[in-house]
């Protein structure tokens, strides 16, 4: 096992979250976890197909960042590991599950699948199946905000865009090209790296000359921060600061969240390369258990209240599966629908 990086310490005393905020963050993370566990079950039961990438273990990053944003106004851009980002922005579990089942009630009408979740209503710019290709798209949404404000004189245009991607993706040119443009034009965007130490079977240290990704921000003159990605309160604090900066027109931030995926790269991955010791180190840092402990220690919630949330989420998931199962397939007559704008006026 490679030496683990020292995780930055976050003083939870300064977190200052209310009981309501704490419960909201907890519920969002539990929803993400339970949804993914159900996906694994449904995949093995032959209900969903293709490459399915689960987010277990990384929940604090999605929840910490997205739940610090303005729902339905700010933009979020994801990758192929996108189910939980979609849930955090508010796409109903029903429509995410239905998409995975390939049903017409899915958020992408059954045309996208696991790696291509979209929702214009929730300002989810999409899941992107190719490494790095979502970063320029997110940059475009951020550019659009600046354009509306400065070229069209719309004073209400202060939306922020958050763009999520993995450690492996930071070795791709689009990452550097977009960091440059974002800093150059001071675009309101957060580049959120989910450094889970692996890009399928490629260990991060074997792929990059400077493993501390947040440091790569400095050469672009942009703030770069590392954060314990297993601590939702720490992620939230860092995100809030970056969002405020972006909204104030002060430009982008690169956030490197140190995290870990608790499952293989995808459900097709035998996961043979990661050591037991490494996994155990990270399992012990489960972000959901961590928040639960904090909430109860601080008397923000009781065990029973947290249990009640878990039950409620289980119901949501069961209903989503039922919804997906009972939803119709797309109409074969609509095979060509959505190729061009005029096909669906």
């Amino acid at each position, binding site marked *: 096992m490679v030496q683990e990086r020292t995780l930055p310490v976050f003083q939870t005393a300064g977190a200052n979250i209310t009981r309501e905020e704490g419960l909201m963050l907890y519920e969002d993370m539990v929803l993400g976890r339970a949804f993914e566990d159900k996906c694994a079950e449904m995949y093995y039961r032959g209900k969903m197909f293709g490459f399915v990438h689960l987010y277990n273990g990384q929940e604090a990053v999605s929840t910490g960042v997205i739940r610090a944003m303005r729902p339905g106004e700010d*933009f979020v*851009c994801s990758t192929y590991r996108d189910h939980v980002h979609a849930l955090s922005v508010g796409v109903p579990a029903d429509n995410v599950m239905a998409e995975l089942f390939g049903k017409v009630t*899915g*958020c*992408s*009408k*059954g*045309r*996208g699948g696991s790696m*291509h979740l*979209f*929702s*214009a209503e929730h300002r989810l*710019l*999409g899941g*992107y199946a*190719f490494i790095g*290709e979502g*970063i*320029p*798209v*997110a*940059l*475009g*949404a*951020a*550019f*659009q905000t*600046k*354009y509306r404000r*400065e*070229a*069209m004189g719309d004073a209400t245009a202060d939306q922020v865009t958050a763009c999520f991607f993995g450690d492996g993706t930071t070795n791709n*040119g*689009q990452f550097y*090209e*977009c960091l*440059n*443009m974002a800093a*150059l034009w001071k675009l309101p965007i957060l580049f959120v790296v989910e450094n889970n130490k692996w890009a399928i079977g490629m260990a991060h240290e074997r792929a990059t000359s400077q493993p501390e990704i947040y440091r790569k921000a400095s050469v672009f003159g942009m703030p770069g921060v590392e954060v314990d990605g297993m601590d939702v309160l720490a992620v939230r604090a860092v995100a809030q600061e970056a969002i405020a900066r972006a909204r104030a027109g002060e430009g982008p931030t690169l956030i490197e969240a140190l995290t870990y995926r608790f499952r293989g790269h995808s459900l097709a991955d035998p996961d043979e390369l990661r050591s037991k010791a490494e996994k155990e180190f990270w399992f012990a840092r489960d972000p959901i258990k961590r928040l639960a402990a904090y909430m109860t220690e601080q008397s923000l919630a009781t065990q029973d209240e947290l249990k009640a949330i878990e039950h409620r989420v289980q119901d949501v998931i069961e209903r989503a599966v039922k919804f997906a199962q009972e939803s119709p397939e797309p109409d074969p007559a609509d095979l060509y*629908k*959505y*190729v*061009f*704008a*005029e096909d*669906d006026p």
Partner: protein
Amino acid sequence: MAETLLYNALREAIDEEMGRDPTVYVLGEDVGHYGGSYKVTKDLYKKYGELRVLDTPIAENSFTGMAVGSAMTGLRPIIEGMNMGFLLLAFNQIANNAGMLRYTSGGNFKIPMVIRGPGGVGRQLGAEHSQRLEAYFQGVPGLKMVACSTPYNAKGLLKAAIRDDNPVLFFEHVLLYNLKQDLPDEEYILPLNRAEIVRPGKDVTILTYSRMRHHVMQAVKTLTKEGYDPEVIDLISLKPLDFETIGPSIQKTHRVIIVEECMKSGGIGAELTASINDRLFDELDAPVLRMASQDIPTPYNGMLENLTIVQPPQIVEAVKKMVGGKI
């Protein structure tokens, strides 16, 4: 009526559309201060500001993706490829995101954008600056492809492309920028999906586009003097192909010659031939003749370069042979 050079006709189209719709903007390398590599955007930044005529770093794939993201969120970007060939670096964003994203998203997003710029085989520019890209892009679902060929159609088509709600690849030819033509003073727009009957005739249908239209018309001058009467159609829309215009012409002439600058393998002519055989085989009195450029990188040497693309005398010969019943 004002005599207008083709590059200025394009500039007028962009200027008019930017004036009309504040969401329209131009981005690309040297489109602002420098005015574009062929001066199509000259001084527009002075009128519309540096955000609406955005000089980008040399990062084709990323600024193309940025245009996609801005189009998804309500703007109407016009990308200028400094040379269209450079957009090979943007192939991923053009194919996956501009082309397919609307479908993949189940109609969640539309992507109104234009990707335009100088292309085609220039004069001794060497292989990389003399590309025939339409062959590469034609397989991408969700893209429209248009090739302009005169100042008149350049302006009317570009305006239509900017207003279209889909991604449009708009091909200009480096050797046509200085063509001159009188343009109407009043505003006009041309449909993106319509071929243009350049010259009606009855002997043979010649299907062509972009610069080859002018090679064909040169050949036609010779042919008509000798009593031949070919029909010339400028495809304009390379994707989708306008069979509403092509079909009736073939039903009239029963003979087809395709003249293109594209490479032969997997080119526009290849697709066109296959589609004609699919739809109109019984109408044909002779096999479709495909005159395309050679399947080689465009050579630098001027003589070799001329051998690479179709020349007017070859078109004259081909028409005579076909109409004379020799093929």
